[in-house]
């Protein structure tokens, strides 16, 4: 069902995006971006100090597919569940460049036979554009508070 209203549509985008990751349909993840879309996960510490390092960096849908392929076929890791809580969605502006949106998130991680823990929390700073009938990410920047990562970050946030 297509929701009415810009914020509702943006939230739908966010929630379907999260669902693809949480429900292990990670192959769909790059499709939420435009072809030259950029995805970046950076620590709040690096971000605040102006350091360019990203913990995860994809500069194109192709790189996202490479990441998906790694997750599916190359990397070795313990099975786990992610669960996104997306909150505080704020549409900041809409220009020719796209729609600027910010939001907060917490990702809960559950390792098999383990407890559910807050794995990562922070905010997203997004640029969203229309592509045909759909909204897509032109860029998504996840700035995480959780400087010390509990072991490994397998999936995109």
């Amino acid at each position: 069902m297509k929701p009415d209203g810009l914020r509702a549509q943006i939230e739908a985008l966010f929630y379907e995006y999260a669902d693809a990751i949480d429900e292990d349909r990670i192959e769909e993840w790059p499709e939420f971006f435009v072809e030259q879309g950029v995805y970046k996960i950076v620590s709040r510490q690096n971000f605040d100090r102006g350091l360019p390092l990203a913990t995860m960096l994809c500069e194109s849908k192709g790189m996202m597919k490479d990441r998906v392929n790694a997750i599916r076929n190359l990397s070795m890791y313990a099975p786990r569940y992610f669960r996104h809580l997306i909150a505080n969605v704020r549409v900041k502006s809409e220009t020719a460049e796209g729609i600027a949106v910010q939001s907060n998130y917490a990702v809960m991680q559950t390792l098999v036979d383990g407890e559910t823990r807050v794995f990562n929390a922070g905010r997203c700073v997004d640029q969203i554009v229309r592509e045909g009938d759909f909204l897509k990410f032109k860029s998504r920047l996840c700035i995480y508070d959780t400087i010390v990562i509990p072991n490994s970050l397998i999936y995109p946030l």
Partner: protein
Amino acid sequence: MDVDGRAGSQRRALKQWPAEGVTRVPYWVYTDPEIYELETKRIFEGGSWNYVGLEAELPHPGDFRMSHVGPRPVIACRTNQGAISVLPNRCAHRGVQFCRSGFGNTTEFTCPYHQWTYNLYGKLVGAPFRKGVQGKGGMPPDFAPNEHGLPVLAVARRNGVIFAAFGESPPPIEEYIGPKMLPYFDRVFDGRALRVLGYSKQRIPSNWKLMFENIKDPYHASLLHVFLVTFGLFRADQPSETRMDTTGMHSVLVSSRGEQKGNAATAEMKSFRGDLKLNDSRLLDPVREYPGKATVVMQTLWPNLIVQQQTNTLATRQIVPRGPREFDLAWTFFGYADDTAAMTTRRLRQANLMGPAGFVSIDDSEVMQFSQQGISQDSSGAGFLEMGGRGTGDEDHMVTEAAIRAFYTHYRRVMKL
């Protein structure tokens, strides 16, 4: 009723190193709290040069960063004379861990509790009310401020890398690294100014030594790391070397990039995928930047440093133990101050291979957790390390656990185990 007696003697028996020597590593070295305490004293505080940071992080007088020597929090400072001082992050008065900022610039450190103030050399330069207030109270007349400074650590620097040591100063850093290892160190740290690109930190639920074993273990790389193997970044059939210093405490793994082409060796690697292609090849767009054929050099320096040069991604990895079953791995990614913008972009892209979400390093951080879990099932077992024979010497290949055996040779000597 024999609980205590038996448990006690059992415990003692558990701590007998297996008769086979370093081809076995008893599992209690990864789990026992007393062993961990001894490691703190004999290894991290016992005459070893611990990595604490890069000079590039402290460009200006008064710049400081928090760091660790083994598990112990310290502060590395750029002094006004351009030297480096390293101070314990603990007040000499009543023990407050006073410095709370990861990075900063200051002329002195003031403990919040009673404002004892130390200069960048650890000297106590202020203690309010020392002479009392309105003629009352204050420190005794024999209070000697110079006896109440911070016990500074010994400091060594080489080509922009800072080391520190508790207790008596170890030998000069060049001697400590040794003539065999120094050229590898100097290969990346060649005297050019460095530029820090950023930091990553992981909390890994395993004993800190498993991190060293991992990096000293070329045998696993061809098998565990599908990414490395498939793209020929590090593979057993490529020209390679495993080198140790004379003590066994340091080592390097050296290798040259190969092709994504099957052969007899790759046939044995379940992890080899001949048909895999990157969708965006910018991810791996290697440029040769060091003399010689080696495209990857992974160096481990006792007791807390890994220097990573994998293609064009450079990083120091500092090991910060947090008890027998956990350590933090603190990554500092860097390039050179004179890098082109294109090279910086390349390094940042290749950084996808490393760190908490690294295409390669995820495998390692996960397998270390699995190791600790298996080891902790029952600490009366022992690891079996006979790949490449039972020796502890250099090898011109990767199919060996020699560097791990060398590491434990030194470990046993230092730990008196």
